[in-house]
Every structure is written in structure tokens, then in C-alpha cells.
């Protein structure tokens, strides 16, 4: 039974939190959001750092570099330093070796070590008198790529978490904007009805008729390219559907006796919309909003694909999935990992939406 003296929002919150499925879904969403915010600092990789030595590494728990790859990697490094690597020994995460050359060795070549993804900065242990032999120690840089790397050797986990910031912010904010404008506009149009409704909905039709891409390109031309622009563009387009849905509901609600009763009490238009029209139109709104989030996230990837949205080295789930789809044959994890995170998010979101709709029902326990 509903609790005593609670408002609609309070009742709905209570019911929602009493629902184990809703609680679990909210927890999943919270975890994903938290991971996106704090996670990139903890993975040990920078999202945009390119590891030339680890392109397309499959996901695993293993520590890189593998022991058997260290010697060949050192030899490649020596080749680029135009020296020979001799007496290579690996122990306790450190390599010891001697660099040999026919001419004296310039110590500045040692920077090649720190540029490599396998080793840390090298130190000179001993130098021969003629300068042609250099005993060097360098720490092995041990790393893990839990979800593998992309074609450029960037850590996929970090990129997914960083991309999630853009996608979640966009998905939730653009949806919230669409929700706010669409519900207010649609409810007002539907409730007023008649000429006001006709005029307001014609404006919606005109905006509908504007091709989305042309609209975005127009915005880019006027305001320049930025991520904020994607928010504006998506929000400006997506509220139209919402307005239509709410307006349809409001049209039928305004003829109900409880709205008539409120009018007879002299309740102002704003209060009627707030207390009677909007709460009773919320069912389909919640359902549509839950669908809108994934739509917006994928729309962003489309914009980014056209070069109008998020640009390298920044990324988003949509962009990652698009990249993954292109390399599905060589490195399927590039598609699977970001897609799985997106699916988990959307599943949780849809469940929350569904339970929220149930909690809003007047008959809910």
C-alpha cells in the first residue's frame, strides 16, 4: 500500500527502491558511471597513448611483455640504435645487456629505451674506454591489457571508460533535454488544443522537415566544431518525437473529468499541466525515454563518423563500436568489448525504465 502523506515523486521513488530488479539495475548503472569517471586513472594506461609494440593485442590477464619477446624486441631496438645487443640477461624485471658498435656510442641513443613500450629509461652501468661498448640496465615495463588493445595498441579498457564519459553524458543529457522540452511543449499544446495546438504542432512539423545532417552541418558552420554542439543538435531534434507523444496523451487527458474538475476549481493552466496532465502522461514518456538513450548514443557515433562529432584522440562508445565493426575479422574483441558495455548499460536502463513505469502506475503495490 502506498505510504502516508507522500507526494507522487516520493511514492514513486519508494516503490522503485522497493523493487529488487530496479535496485539491481540502478546499481549496475551507478557502477558503470563510477567506472567511467574514476576508472581511467586506475587502469595504468592513458587513453590516447599509442603502444606501437602491442597493436591488436587480444584481451587477457597475462603480463606483457612476454619473456620470449624481450630478446627479439631488444634486437629490434638495437637495430634502430645502429648498435649490436650482446650478453642479454633478464632478471627480476630488469634487463642487462651490452651495446656494441664499431664507432663510439652516443649515450643519447638510450632514449630509444624509454620510447619503447617494453622498457623504462635505461641507465649506463659501465662504459669501455674506447666508448664502443656500453653496459646498460633498463627496467622491463610490465603492463596488462585486460580488454586488449586496438589497431594502434591503445588500451581498450581505458578507451571504453573514457568513451563512456562522452556517451553517458550525451545519452542522459540529450535525453533529459529532449524530455524537458518535449514534455513541457507537448503537454501544453495538447492541453490547450485548438488553434494553439495546431500552431505549436506546425512548428514541430517544420523542424521535422529539416534534414538532420543539414541541420548539424549548419550548426558546425555557424558555431564551429565541438562536442557541445552534438548535445545541442541531438537535443534539438529528439524532443520533437517526445512532444508528439505527450501531446497525444494530453489531448485525451484534457477531456477527462478530473481535468474538468480542476478547471472548475480555478486551478491555473500551469498547475493543471503539472499535477494532472504530465503525471498521467508519464507512462509512454518513460518508455520512450528509455529507448531514446541508446538512440542518442548511436546517433552520436554516426555524427562522429561524418566527422561532426567526437574527434580522435577523444572517443565514445559509438566510435569504438564503429571501429570495432571495421576490424571484426582481425580483432573481434574491439567490437565485443564496447558493445558488451553498451548492452549492459542499455539493459539496465531499460529495466529501470520499465520498473519506473510500473512504479508510476496508480495500481502499483
Amino acid at each position, binding site marked *: 500500500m*502506498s505510504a502516508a502523506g507522500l507526494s507522487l515523486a516520493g511514492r514513486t521513488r519508494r516503490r522503485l527502491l522497493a523493487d529488487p530488479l530496479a535496485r539491481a539495475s540502478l546499481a549496475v548503472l551507478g557502477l558503470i558511471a563510477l567506472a567511467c569517471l574514476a576508472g581511467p586513472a586506475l587502469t595504468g594506461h592513458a587513453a590516447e597513448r599509442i603502444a606501437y609494440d602491442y597493436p591488436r593485442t587480444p584481451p587477457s590477464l597475462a603480463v606483457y611483455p612476454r619473456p620470449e619477446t624481450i630478446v627479439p624486441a631488444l634486437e629490434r631496438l638495437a637495430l634502430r640504435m645502429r648498435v649490436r645487443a650482446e650478453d642479454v640477461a633478464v632478471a627480476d624485471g630488469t634487463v642487462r645487456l651490452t651495446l656494441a658498435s664499431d664507432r663510439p656510442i652516443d649515450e643519447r641513443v638510450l632514449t630509444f629505451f624509454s620510447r619503447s613500450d617494453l622498457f623504462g629509461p635505461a641507465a649506463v652501468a659501465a662504459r669501455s674506454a674506447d666508448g664502443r661498448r656500453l653496459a646498460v640496465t633498463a627496467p622491463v615495463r610490465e603492463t596488462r591489457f585486460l580488454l586488449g588493445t586496438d589497431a594502434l595498441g591503445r588500451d581498450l579498457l581505458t578507451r571504453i571508460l573514457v568513451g563512456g564519459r562522452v556517451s553517458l553524458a550525451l545519452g542522459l543529457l540529450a535525453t533529459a533535454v529532449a524530455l524537458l522540452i518535449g514534455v513541457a511543449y507537448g503537454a501544453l499544446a495538447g492541453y490547450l488544443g485548438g488553434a494553439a495546438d495546431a500552431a505549436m504542432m506546425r512548428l514541430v512539423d517544420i523542424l521535422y522537415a529539416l534534414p538532420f545532417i543539414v541541420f548539424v552541418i549548419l550548426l558546425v558552420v555557424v558555431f564551429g566544431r565541438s562536442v557541445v554542439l552534438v548535445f545541442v543538435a541531438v537535443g534539438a531534434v529528439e524532443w520533437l518525437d517526445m512532444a508528439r507523444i505527450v501531446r497525444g496523451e494530453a489531448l485525451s487527458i484534457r477531456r477527462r473529468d*478530473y481535468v*474538468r474538475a480542476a478547471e*472548475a476549481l*480555478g486551478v491555473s493552466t500551469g*498547475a493543471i499541466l503539472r499535477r494532472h496532465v504530465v503525471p*498521467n502522461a508519464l507512462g509512454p514518456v518513460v518508455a520512450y525515454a528509455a529507448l531514446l538513450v541508446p538512440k542518442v548514443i548511436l546517433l552520436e557515433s554516426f555524427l562522429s563518423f561524418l566527422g561532426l562529432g567526437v574527434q580522435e584522440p577523444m572517443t565514445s562508445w559509438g566510435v569504438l563500436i564503429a571501429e570495432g565493426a571495421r576490424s571484426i575479422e582481425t580483432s573481434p574483441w574491439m567490437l565485443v568489448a564496447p558493445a558488451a558495455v553498451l548492452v549492459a548499460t542499455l539493459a539496465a536502463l531499460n529495466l529501470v525504465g520499465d520498473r519506473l513505469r510500473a512504479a508510476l502506475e*496508480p495500481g502499483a503495490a
Partner: protein
Amino acid sequence: MALLSVRGLSVAYAGGTALDSLDLALHRGETLALVGESGSGKSQAALAVMGLLPEAARVSGSVRFDGTELIGLPRPALDRIRGARIGMVFQEPMSALDPLFPVGRQIALPLQAHRGLTRAQARARALDLLTLVGIRDAERRLSAYPHELSGGERQRVMIAMALACEPDLLIADEPTTALDVTVQAQILALLADLKARLGLALLFITHDLRLVRRMAERVAVLRAGRLVETGPTERIFARPQSPEARDLLAAEPRGRKAPVPAGAPVVMAARGLSVSYPGRGGLFTRAAPRRALQGIDLALRAGQTLGVVGESGSGKSSLGRALVRLEPAATGLVRFEDRDLTRLDRAGLRPLRRFFQPVFQDPYGSLSPRLSAGEIVAEGLRVHAPGLSARERDARAAEAFAQVRLDPETRHRQPHAFSGGQRQRIAIARAIILRPKVVVLDEPTSALDRTVQRDIVALLRDLQARHGLAYLFISHDLAVVRALADTVLVLRDGREVERGETAAVLARPREAYTRALVAAADLAPEGQS
């Protein structure tokens, strides 16, 4: 042997028992009335016989039709019996007919399917059937769509469909509840006539015991899923044995309203009040406006009740809405005390609105479903007493609950948790919390059971006496009007037909239309009620 024999029929849902071991027997050519209030299980019984109960229902017991056990009968065998040998007529003919097909086709299709008639034969039979159920101009009506028919005609079509395959048993579930009183009488006469001519057995389900007096040979009274009394109609009416049957018989609203004190001031008056809706024209054509109400004059004094009666479409509700200024299409003069309401705009009207309040017919549609009952009742205070804190508003709501005799503790529940009668009390509480002077009651008791109706009528009379309210009481139910109204105004097609003291009009109606209404209402004699 009985045509239909029901033994120990029980229907249970997860939430509880809807029907508890019902025993009934119905012979060929006999009419059995199944009477009870909403929730008594009478419709459950009909649905169980037809095998139409929802999946969630658990059915036990036995239903034998002409020797065949229907409970647990596989679908194909059941389909050979229902529709063909048992016909059913539902309460709401509009939702039982398919809006996309002409009614002639809807009658003919099952005949083609079940009886193997050709299209032309089925059409001829449909025409016969429509003539049989008394549809005038049946030839033309064959190609009419359901929305082109009146409510009574639709119910006749439903009856024709139920009779199409010449059934032995007709189940009529509240077949007249959605219809006007005069139409109601015609449909009842039609059913009685068909029964006599076709030798049908009729299972007549209703909440209104008075309806069946002239219809049924036997009556079975249900309450809360149990059969409480059964017997010959004469005996039940003369000597009801169970308190339930006595209650149903005595359910007609009793008592009369005390007369208006002399010299009571006129609180609300209307002159030449008209309402017309713009016609539905095309883009460039404009149809003639439809006049819903024409030139009505009236004056309401404090403590007075003006009853407004008429059939649906007579303009009763338009009049009520025009008086409380909910009808933007209204023209003419409406005065409240010394203020001309027709000259005020929305903002000017707002402070006065607390003095005239409406109560609507459908208690399920008039309460905002997502607010708590207390919030609904207190809503007017937000507008008219903005200084009150939430706590004070809540206290006033509790007070209003007590006034309409609802438990104030229940005010935190949402409307769905209340019964129809309780909801109507909430709607009344919402109107009176502002201490209005005029209340427009638009069929406030029509959607309620008779016994609940009686209590609401008593409540309305009590509130009126205590607060000196003036009522405009709109109803098609003359029994309720008789118990509540000082004067009565009869409307037809938006015009005044007759007006006068309630007792005089009901006893000696001058106009034919009023006489038809009074005759159809079949009022209990003055002395008895």
C-alpha cells in the same frame, strides 16, 4: 430435464473467490434473473457458462447444457455450442461490435461460416433478424456502421447477432444498463417478446431487481459470490427472505427533500442559456452548428434542488457545464448572486469558482489517478486558500472526508483503492471543501449500485440541509430525482419540455415525452418507498 444445470460452480482468482459453489437450473422457455450488485459474481457465472473466463481464473464444479458438460470441454466442441446454441448479449453494445464492418456483414459472417449459407442467403437471414429485433428500415440499416446507430439500435443488433444461429439459451448480461430509460423499456419488451415467440430460455443478469419483475419467472439473488436466495419472482417480491434480497428491493432512494425555506435568496440564475458546437465541416465547407441547448432560463435558490431530466443528448450535461462555466461554447446570461459570470474572463472568474462546483457522473474518471485522495480533495484549497500550509490543507481534507462519511485515515490512498461509491464521496468532498453555494451534480449516482445510490442520495440531502446548498441535479433516473429535487426541468433536444414541482410532474406529466419517461422509470408507488 433442465436445459442448463449449474452445480457447485466456483470461480477463484489469486486474490480470492469470485463465485462460491453456485447451483442453478434453467428450463426451456424459462427466464431466470441473476441479480446482484457489482462484485457479486453474477457476470463471472455467465462467463463461466460461456467458457470466456480469463486464463487466471480457476473454475470448479459442473455446468451441463442439454446433457453436455461444458467445464473442461475442449475448444472445438465448445465452439459448436456457444454462439450456435447459446447466444450472449453484452452490456456495452458499442464495444461489442466491430466498428469497421457494416452491421449486416457482422450478422451474416458467422452464418456463412457456421451454417454454410451463401452470401445472399446470409444477407436475407440478417435482414430477417434485424426485422425480428424491431429495427426500422432494416434493409437500409444492413449497410450501416455501428457508429451510425443509436445505443438502442446497437443493442438490437447485438441481440440479432446472438439469435442468428437460433440458440436455445440467450444470456443477457446487463443488456440495458448503458441505455436511456425509455430505450431500456423497449429492449426489455423486445427480449420478453422474443422469448415468447422463439421459445428461448433466457438468463437475465442485472443489478437492478426492479427490472426483472415483469421479465423473469424465477430470480436468483447473489451477494459476494454466494447465492443467498432463489425462488419464483412473485414470492421474492412479496416475501423476500434474505436480508440481501430485502435490501435490493428497498434500494430505491427513499424519503423526500424538505421544502425550500420561504424567502431563500436566489444564488444562481441563467437567462437564455444556449450551447452550440461548431459543425464538423470539411476544409472549405462549414457544417451547420449543432445546438445542444437552446434558450434555457432558470433560477436556483439557496437550499433548492432543481432536477434536470431527459434522455442522453437532451442537453442536460451541457446545461450543467454551462452553469459552472466549463462550456466555452455557451451564450446567454449566467448570474451568480449579483455578478454576471458571462462577462468575466478566466482570471476574473477564478475567485468566484469556489462558490459553484461540479460533481461528475463517472467516479472512475473524475479523480486524477496518480494523486492521493487527500491531495485530490484539497486541490481547491491550493487555489482558494493559498495561505494554508500543507499540514493545514491536510487537516481540512480529513475534515471533508469525515463530512462525506469516509474514514479520514484512508485519505493517503490513491483513487484505485476505493469503490465506486467511495470515489463519488471523494468527488463530493472535493466540491464541498470550498464551502460552495451551488453544486452541479451531473448524474452522480448513475454509475453506482442501487444500495450505494441510496446512501449517496441520503448524504447529498444531509449536506444540503446542513450547508444550505443549491443543487442542479442532472439525472435520467426519476427515482433519484423524486428523492432529491424540489422542482424538475424536463429537457429534450436542448429545449425545455416541461417544468414544475417534482411530485406534480411525476404524478401528472403534461407532455407525451415526460409521460414516456415516467412510464419507463416504473417508479414504486409513493406509499411503498
